[in-house]
């Protein structure tokens, strides 16, 4: 059964490749500055948040812009992927109604395309730490591991959201709100230890907390990551992907009729 899933995907690898390429390219195709937006967008966002939180709200974190950037960019990767997943099946409705291909290609290519965008954006983090005087440490070797954890978390959620949204279109709007809440429930603009102990549980049950903390350890604090939680997260995320895939494969049978 599991071998079949992978074999099917392998047979359609060309489609996966072209879909990812199209997804990445289409993002900037019609804009004048093109790929530059990959850099400008997060950069402007960081500047806005840095002004609000360090100048207006007087946050005392050293190098706040770098602190922010190490959390905000991975978050953007997460939130854009989830947001896009909510719409992607409906947007591809036309082709789903006309041709057979493994439907899971759609969420997978959305998440993978965003991963490529994230890899590009990582250059911004690197730029910040190099030119901000923090520098790069050997702990950057943990980066791929954290990325894998994040990819799997996003993929698991993407399978579920993309398929359920076909049946309940309202969910698309909820997702925007939930993501906004989750943004503040993740230590992005603040650090985890600045939160009073009675609220720590919120962060504890949020997978993005571990991921943002890990990136921040790598780039900002230059320390080892919490390896145990990341590996645990990977295991949970793999379980999540299996469940997510199962839900997706059940729901995809009705896609052509619902769209």
């Amino acid at each position, binding site marked *: 059964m599991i071998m079949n899933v992978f074999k099917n995907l392998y047979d359609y690898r*060309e*489609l996966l*490749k072209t879909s990812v390429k199209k997804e990445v390219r289409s993002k900037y195709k019609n804009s004048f500055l093109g790929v530059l937006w990959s850099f400008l967008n997060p950069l402007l966002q960081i500047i806005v948040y840095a002004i609000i939180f360090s100048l207006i709200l007087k946050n005392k974190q050293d190098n706040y812009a770098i602190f922010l950037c190490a959390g905000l960019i991975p978050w953007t990767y997460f939130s854009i992927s989830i947001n896009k997943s909510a719409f992607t099946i409906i947007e591809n409705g036309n*082709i789903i109604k*006309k*041709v*057979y291909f493994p439907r899971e290609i759609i969420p997978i290519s959305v998440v993978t395309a965003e991963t490529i965008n994230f890899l590009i954006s990582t250059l911004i983090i690197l730029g910040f730490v190099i030119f901000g005087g923090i520098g790069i440490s050997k702990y950057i070797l943990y980066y791929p591991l954290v990325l894998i954890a994040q990819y799997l978390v996003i993929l698991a959620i993407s399978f579920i959201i993309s398929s359920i949204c076909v049946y309940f*279109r309202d969910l698309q709007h909820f997702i925007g709100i939930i993501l906004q809440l989750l943004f503040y429930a993740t230590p992005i603009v603040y650090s985890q230890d600045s939160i009073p102990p009675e609220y720590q549980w919120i962060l504890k049950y949020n997978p993005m907390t571990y991921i943002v903390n890990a990136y921040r350890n790598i780039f900002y604090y230059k320390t080892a990551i919490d390896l145990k939680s990341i590996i645990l997260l990977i295991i949970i995320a793999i379980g999540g992907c299996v469940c997510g895939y199962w839900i997706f494969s059940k729901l995809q049978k009705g896609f052509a*009729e619902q769209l």
Partner: protein
Amino acid sequence: MENYAICVKDVYKNFNVYLDKSNTIKEKILFLSRNKKEKREVLKGINLKIKQGEAVALIGTNGSGKSTLLKLMTKILYPNSGVIRINGKLTSLLELGAGFHPDFSGRENIYFNASIFGLTKKQIDAKLEDIIEFSELEEYIDNPVRTYSSGMFMRLAFAVAINVNADILLVDEILSVGDEHFQNKCIKKMLELRDKGKTMVFVTHSMDSVRKLCSRAVWLCDGQIRIDGNTNEVINKYVEETK
């Protein structure tokens, strides 16, 4: 079992036809009573076995369930009950040019379209010349598809689909592609594929092409198989009755 390419067993398919479809939760809750749906039985217990290398035509009036049956075979739709088993790689030409992107060139669209049919880059590279030649679009192949006439568009789409190396080919009412010259070419190509031992299922209203291509015809009527047998016999009865 093994020598059957397609095995359809006791298949039922219903569609829910929403008279006033509410997609949002708000509407679903507010207008519970309005959520009227009509169950429409499109297929009622279809049993059909198609041998490898057989060319079968599905005929019947509009709304008899022919296209639905094809969509079930290609796994765009799934049956409410019953089983469909497919033996071999299946390609369906339900609608030509699905997934064509108007801003990309003909060549790029060949790659994209063929990849939807599950071909790898290498396989497409090998087929590229054949596809371009078959479509007769040599000089226009690098122009964006949106500049094509509808005939050119259809020719390209058909050329891609017919050159996908599938064991089973499902074709829905697309034999009316292009001018007579191109139609004849398509029929010739399909005959060639049939002689190579490919399995084919056609849905069409053109009885002439059925006679040319198929040895067996299945007459669907109101979601059930009316007659299944030799092409000429079935067509004669069909034509007589629907006159």
